[in-house]
């Protein structure tokens, strides 16, 4: 099952600041999923460049992982680290809301 998981690792050597781990559940290339992918990548690049990791899971290929994480709708974004865990549903189009939910407003630099 893990093989089906597509991983995108973007880590930087830059020390200091917390590192972020995301798990993004998508359904193939449907429009909401593609938008969520793009939105998340852009936000991360803008706010926590070099300090994040995104695990993208395609539920159409890895239903077991979706089940394990209790994913019911796609896209679903889970902020795994730092704690506390945060779950976001939707294509992440509302940038301000997403940043607030992920605690990425202001002093994360």
């Amino acid at each position: 099952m893990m093989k089906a998981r597509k991983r995108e690792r973007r880590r930087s050597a830059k020390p200091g600041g917390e590192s972020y781990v995301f798990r993004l559940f998508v359904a193939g290339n449907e429009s909401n999923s593609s938008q969520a992918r793009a939105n998340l990548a852009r936000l991360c690049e803008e706010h926590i460049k070099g300090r994040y990791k995104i695990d993208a899971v395609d539920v159409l290929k890895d239903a077991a992982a979706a089940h394990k994480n209790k994913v019911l709708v796609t896209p679903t974004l889970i902020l795994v680290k730092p704690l506390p865990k945060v779950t976001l549903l939707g294509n992440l189009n509302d940038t301000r809301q997403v940043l607030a939910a992920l605690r990425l407003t202001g002093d994360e630099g």
Partner: protein
Amino acid sequence: MATAKRRGQRGVAAGTRTGKGRKGLSKVPTGIAGLDLVLGGGLPAGRVTLIHGGAGSGKSIMSLQCLLHGAGAGKPGILIMFEERAAAVRQNAWSRGWDLTRLEKKNKLYLMDARLDPEAVISGDFSIKGILAVLDHRIKAMRAKLIVIDAVDALLHLYDNPMRERHELYVLHEWLLDRGLTTLMTVKTIPQEEAPSRYAFLDFMADCVIHVDQRVTAQIATRRLRVIKYRGSGYGRNEYPFIIDESGINIIPITSNILQHRPPGPKVSSGQARLDDVLAGGYKRGTSILLAGTAGAGKTTLACVFTRAACLRGERVLYLNFEESAESMVSNMLSPGLTLQPLIKAGTLAVRSYLPEAMGVEEHLFHALKDLDEFQPQHVVVDAISACKRMGSEQAAFEYLMRLLNVCKERGITCIYINQTSGLEIAQEISGIGISSLIDTIILLRQLPIGGAMTRQLIVMKSRGSKHSEQFHEFRITDRGIDLVKA
């Protein structure tokens, strides 16, 4: 019993067929007593059935019962719960004696806890593809044929937008049809509102729609079920009362639409030789007899005289007592010398005491029919029909007594109804709850003050299809039963 079943079918859904319908619509039996009859065989196979009703109306139990029946009949099923915890569902089922875990282990049943994280932040549009992917996986693994989506409204509620709700539901519907799953969806409605207005489109989408509700009249709750539509199939169109007991949902057999009463049988002794003479031979077997009179007139004693005589002949009597417990009745009857305990022991007499206000008409009727089925009596005594008003209303009592009487007449069971009248103006009260037209024989008992003492008298007011004395007859309650004084 076979005749009873045939009667029920004719009464419920005349013209519907079980199993394959005319156009080849195949059906999946629900296994719920009475419901398959109303649905003309069961749920539409490979299609979506909607059950809507208020909180506590029985939607979830009904759908779980269908799943369990399917699992036992080689149709594995999945239960998706948007509101309840799987553990709680297992526990509740266990209290009814349903072992879900065993079925889960055998891969016949799968409980999917689909409660959404209440903390989840919704940001932008999404679809239900996630859950469908998980389901697809599961359906293949266990070859599921049935699926229950419990509280689909909870899922749709995620969308603020009615257009998106509809669209996702459309996607879900297509997905279910593609997979040929026989589906049950439950939706909550606001009490007093039949169709869930917000989800009215669900009614149009589903092939079969069932509404369940629970009403309280005169402090007594009754549950009812109605099939609103069933594409491509006939169905019972009435509102059907049902009860939920420890075995699950039971839909009460409906009063048949045709009177199929058996003709009255030969005479059977009243237990008192002189009364038999007054009645030109006794009561007619399989008919209905009303014993009416004021308190203390000797109605119960007269009924027990008959009961005892019948039991001693080896016939079975079911005594439904709404006034006192079996123990107190047995002890009170010792005074007129009627020993009942040995008859109970011998299994020819069964006394069932029920508190009228303890449950609604449907539940009372259900218990009475269950007693009839289990005990198979030749005679039934109801003591007293006046107490039946406490089941809710006069109308409720009438319904109960009328339906019980019908069942007894169809099965050739003699029915003795005791009615307590309040005043001396008995003539007006005698009809008791309006059932007198259904009664074959009416015996009136009264007490009159004559010469400084109370004198008991009885008169036969009516005896359908038989000669009878038209005199008042004086009688005494002795320590050896009842004695009619020679005129």
